[in-house]
């Protein structure tokens, strides 16, 4: 009964209701869009840091990630454990890493060699261009070189590189590589020192046959990688062969603490943004409801005079407001969702005016692009309902305290 009354009351002054409604809808929809773009930027940074080079989850010997000690290796067959075949993990790739002196046409440079499985690596990270047909490339290994490193070494695709380093048995390792491709990750530090080579070639060079340093994984939900990593770490002892060495499962949050901080600070800035925008919206709603209560004093007086309890009257007004809020939420969801969807599909390309920005261990591509994330809808909509309730509470209380005799006499 009360609900019906509240609904009819809303439409007794459609202009007022529609004005309030549009203010709520526009603010919530824009907020949804802004949060979507914000999340898009975070996703871009995170993916540049994890999907270009590291992977979302990395398995290695304890201490390897900080020391990069050549001797902290494990058996590459551990890539085939059933442990990794569980939901949430979409791909994994074995890797071996070495540091070497590289020489191109005349200059030489120290560089990081990442030995990867050319079939599996592209499923985890994006640095390696999609697998290329082997044809043409002859005896020596193939290398994919960071653009800036290639420039320093003065080499291009098809050129030869000399590699010299110390193998795991102490001997002097040296060999030739052929540049099969260049990459530009947008991270200058990486492009200046990294090259990808074939895993088996690097194992041969370093005299580490069948050994790897890392298993890098891609997961379906990167933001929940920490949970998955913990689970894997717990299950590891039961899956690893008895004589196996201790392994450590790290998620990107542990490998890139500054990235994790950036994302945590995003949650805080999201809260602040919501607060600021809704403070303004709340004042608007408060104003509208106050005006409407004042205008409707006579009507409320009548209701009270005919025996309606003040509490019920208060509830009626709150209910009106809640209805308005729900309606606004629904419209904001549709409207904001549509805007976000447009930005997710098309986005805005800014590459004409700015270049990629390196930030918190990742790099931000020059584009505005949104992603859908449940929180980005829930928070604005819940905020909207809360605001409409809070803003109507004072007017409702005022209405409930009206003295029917005074009001009716006053008119």
């Amino acid at each position: 009964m009360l609900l019906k009354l509240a609904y009819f009351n809303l439409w007794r002054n459609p202009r007022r209701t529609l004005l309030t409604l549009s203010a709520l809808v526009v603010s919530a929809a824009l907020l949804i869009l802004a949060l979507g773009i914000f999340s898009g930027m975070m996703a871009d940074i995170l993916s540049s840091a994890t999907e270009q080079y590291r992977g979302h989850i990395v398995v290695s010997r304890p201490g390897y990630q900080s020391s990069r000690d050549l001797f902290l290796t494990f058996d590459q067959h551990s890539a085939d454990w059933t442990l990794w075949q569980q939901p949430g993990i979409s791909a994994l790739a074995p890797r071996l890493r070495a540091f070497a002196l590289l020489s191109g046409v005349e200059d030489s440079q120290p560089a990081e060699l990442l030995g990867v499985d050319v079939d599996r690596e592209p499923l985890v990270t994006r640095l390696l261009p999609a697998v290329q047909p082997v044809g043409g490339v002859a005896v020596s290994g193939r290398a994919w070189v960071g653009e800036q490193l290639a420039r320093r070494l003065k080499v291009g695709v098809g050129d030869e590189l000399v590699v010299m380093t110390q193998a795991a048995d102490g001997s002097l390792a040296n060999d030739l590589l052929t540049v099969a491709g260049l990459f530009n990750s947008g991270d200058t530090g990486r492009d200046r020192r990294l090259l990808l080579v074939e895993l088996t070639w690097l194992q041969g060079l370093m005299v580490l046959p069948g050994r790897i340093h890392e298993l890098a994984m891609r997961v379906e939900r990167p933001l929940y990688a920490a949970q998955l990593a913990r689970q894997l770490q717990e299950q590891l002892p039961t899956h690893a062969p008895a004589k196996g060495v201790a392994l450590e499962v790290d998620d990107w949050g542990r490998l890139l603490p500054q990235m994790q901080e950036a994302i945590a600070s995003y949650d805080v800035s999201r809260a602040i943004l919501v607060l600021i925008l809704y403070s303004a919206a709340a004042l608007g709603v408060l104003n509208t409801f106050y005006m409407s209560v004042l205008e409707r004093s006579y009507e409320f007086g009548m209701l009270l005079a005919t025996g309606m309890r003040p509490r019920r009257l208060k509830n009626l007004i709150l209910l009106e407001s809640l209805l308005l809020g729900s309606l606004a939420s629904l419209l904001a969801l549709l409207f904001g969702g549509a805007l976000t969807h447009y930005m997710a599909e098309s986005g805005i390309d800014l590459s004409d005016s700015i270049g990629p920005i390196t930030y918190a261990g990742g790099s931000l591509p020059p584009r505005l692009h949104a992603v859908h994330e449940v929180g980005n809808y829930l928070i604005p909509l819940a905020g909207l309902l809360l605001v409409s309730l809070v803003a109507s509470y004072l007017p409702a209380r005022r209405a409930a305290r009206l003295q029917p005799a005074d009001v009716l006499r006053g008119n």
Partner: protein
Amino acid sequence: MSRLLILPVFLLVSLLMPTGLKAEESLPDLEALIRQVETQYNGLSSHAVARMDIQTRNWQRSLVMEFWSWRRDRFLTRILEPAREKGVSTLKLDNEVWNYLPKVDRVIKVPSSMMGGSWMGSHITNDDLVKSDRIDQLFDFTLAQENAEIYQIVCQPKPQTVTVWGQLVYTIDKQHLTPQQVDYFDEEGLLVRQIFFDQIRQIEGRSLPLRMTVVPHDKPEEQTVLTYEQLTFETELTESFFSLRQLKQR
């Protein structure tokens, strides 16, 4: 007229001053001592065969190498054993270091950023090998201790010197004027490594320690021992022997 006189007088005074001081204090010429120690294996030219035993936490191995040197400026070494690395050569041309890799038949230049790095996996750095740190020219010396057997000399880099070392301490055998020990400290004054010299022999009228042991201080279980098996001085070598062309040809 007076201007013309100032220069010669100034030169004369500046030449006389330091020598005069030294004579008065009857100190050994520390710079000359250090120079002698630093160049003990060089001479005008030299030829040597040495064995290098390297012991690390993860592996151990032995190399036999042939060395040639010409003054302090040119230096060539070639691996004789093991067979897998036979022919790998290192050439020092003034301040540049080149490696020749016979397996791929290429010459590769060691960038200056890697001169402090390990040479052939040993605890000897590229810098040590070529003596690119000219200690006697780039450091200041003080005599820290002297007794019947030894001089102990503390070397500190001159203000304008660029070096990784904060301080070096040489312990020099008074009788043979050969080094016994050199301690290397980093810029924070922490001991980084020590080199010990022993097996002193007379070679062509010079006293020389034939064995050199390098011990990194943070990994005391590791070491590199370089032992000279043959050593001759004043060979027929000329400067032109030490060239990139030679490096490739041999």
